[in-house]
């Protein structure tokens, strides 16, 4: 536990750790201010297929709607911010030449790597919670509260979630988002144990995430067959908490697959780190 706090202190002492928090704060505030200024246009663009057949009354563009919109828009960008720290957490020791010093101290390699992994997860969790807090608080201040309307792009598909249910669903969605991002953090962490510098793990992780996302979204039968084998397919399972009814079975399956990925990636990192040759 002491090792974990030590690693956390080390991580949060670096200024680069705060780049992600600053980026999120900037993007969210900018997005919400722009949305506030051009609310009618945004509402029209988002709901135009629905507005052909229905009149919509009430505060549709509320804080919850904005939060769901930002979550949808940022779920591809957040992995990059996570890799900035998770991809650097082990490799930075090699870069700065402190690896040997670290490993000759009493704590075992297993304890050190576990503490570092938990720190990466702590950072990931903190980042997603920060996104949630800033989105919701700023959104509710600017746009007020109300029922949540989930509209699927230009399709005629609407899910209406009553205001009373929204906070719980949001909480579950963000918890699921943390769970998804854990896989990205684990992947970056594995690459970090393999590399001697930080750029490789960061770029490597993002390359895997982007390639998997592109393959998973290609509209061809072959790629549709491959899609279930990619962890990125399950990463958006947080969106299912805004379905009606909530598909618990699908959510459970996705969470389990992502969980296996995280554990598997960590065990690989654990093995690599324990076998790491620091004498040469």
């Amino acid at each position, binding site marked *: 536990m002491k090792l974990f706090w030590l690693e956390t202190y080390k991580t949060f002492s670096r200024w680069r750790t705060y780049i992600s928090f600053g980026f999120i704060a900037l993007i969210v505030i900018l997005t919400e201010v722009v949305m506030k200024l051009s609310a009618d246009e945004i509402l029209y663009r988002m709901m135009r297929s629905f507005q052909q057949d*229905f009149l919509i009354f*009430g505060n549709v563009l509320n804080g919850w709607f904005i939060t769901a919109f930002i979550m949808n828009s940022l779920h591809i960008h957040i992995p990059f911010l996570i890799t900035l720290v998770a991809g650097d957490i082990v490799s930075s020791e090699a870069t700065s030449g402190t690896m040997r010093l670290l490993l000759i101290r009493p704590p075992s390699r297993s304890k050190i790597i576990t503490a570092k992994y938990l720190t990466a997860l702590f950072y990931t969790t903190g980042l997603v919670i920060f996104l949630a807090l800033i989105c919701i608080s700023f959104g509710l201040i600017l746009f007020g509260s109300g029922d949540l309307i989930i509209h699927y*792009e230009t399709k005629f598909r609407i899910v209406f979630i009553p205001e009373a249910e929204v906070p719980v669903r949001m909480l579950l969605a963000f918890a699921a988002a943390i769970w998804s991002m854990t896989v990205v953090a684990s992947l970056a962490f594995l690459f970090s144990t393999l590399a001697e510098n930080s750029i490789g793990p960061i770029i490597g992780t993002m390359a895997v995430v982007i390639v998997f996302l592109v393959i998973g*979204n290609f509209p061809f039968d072959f790629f549709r067959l491959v899609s279930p084998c990619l962890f990125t397919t399950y990463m958006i399972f947080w969106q299912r908490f805004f379905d009606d009814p909530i598909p618990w079975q699908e959510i459970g399956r996705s969470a389990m697959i992502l969980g296996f990925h995280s554990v598997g990636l960590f065990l690989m990192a654990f093995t690599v780190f324990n076998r790491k040759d620091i004498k040469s």
Partner: protein
Amino acid sequence: MRKILLLAGILFLLLSELIQAQEDAFRYLDPIERKYSELKDYMVDVKVHFDIETLKAPDMQAKLYFKAPDKMKVESPKIFFFPKEGGYFNPSLFKKKEFEVKLLERLILDGKNVVRLKLTPTDTGISNKVFVLTIDTDRNLIKEIKISPSEGREIKAAIEYGMFNGFELPIRIDLQLDIPEGEPSGMREFTQFGQRAKRITGKVQITYSNYKVNSGLSDEMFKEKDSHQSKSSP
């Protein structure tokens, strides 16, 4: 010369037949217009129930205000969806000068004399909606409206009436929607080659209660953001 006269005669006969048919069809709309000529405004509680696979929403409630000829406003503390076509009662929607009316058929439905009229807008620049009305000629009531607002869309409204302050006003409108799905966009929405776009079908049940008729609603209350000037609903 004789041929020209013959042609003119035939044209005259056809034209007069057409005018006669139009007049005949208008015969069924005029009594409805007269019946509701004294209806100046109404306010009513509305409850909407959706039975559409792609629209997951609980029942919604609101207060609807209508002022003749075409002002409508909805007040709801929560988000409220209301069908754009066929959702509320506007007796002055079918004006003579705006439609070309054709009598489709006369029939007896549930023991009542009924006619079906097809209303095509005269100025398609303003509206291209084609209406098919089923009118109970015994009670001068529009029982069903079939609307084709644009290509591929079809909405059918079946109306049940109740008596309020001497006016027969809807207590329930059952809407049947059959509309094409919106244009797909984005990677996830790409369809495989040869796949056809799905259609959205479903029902919307609108029930009306607590009518207050001719209570003297002011024009000002319809000037707010959430009010609509309707040119499309029954």
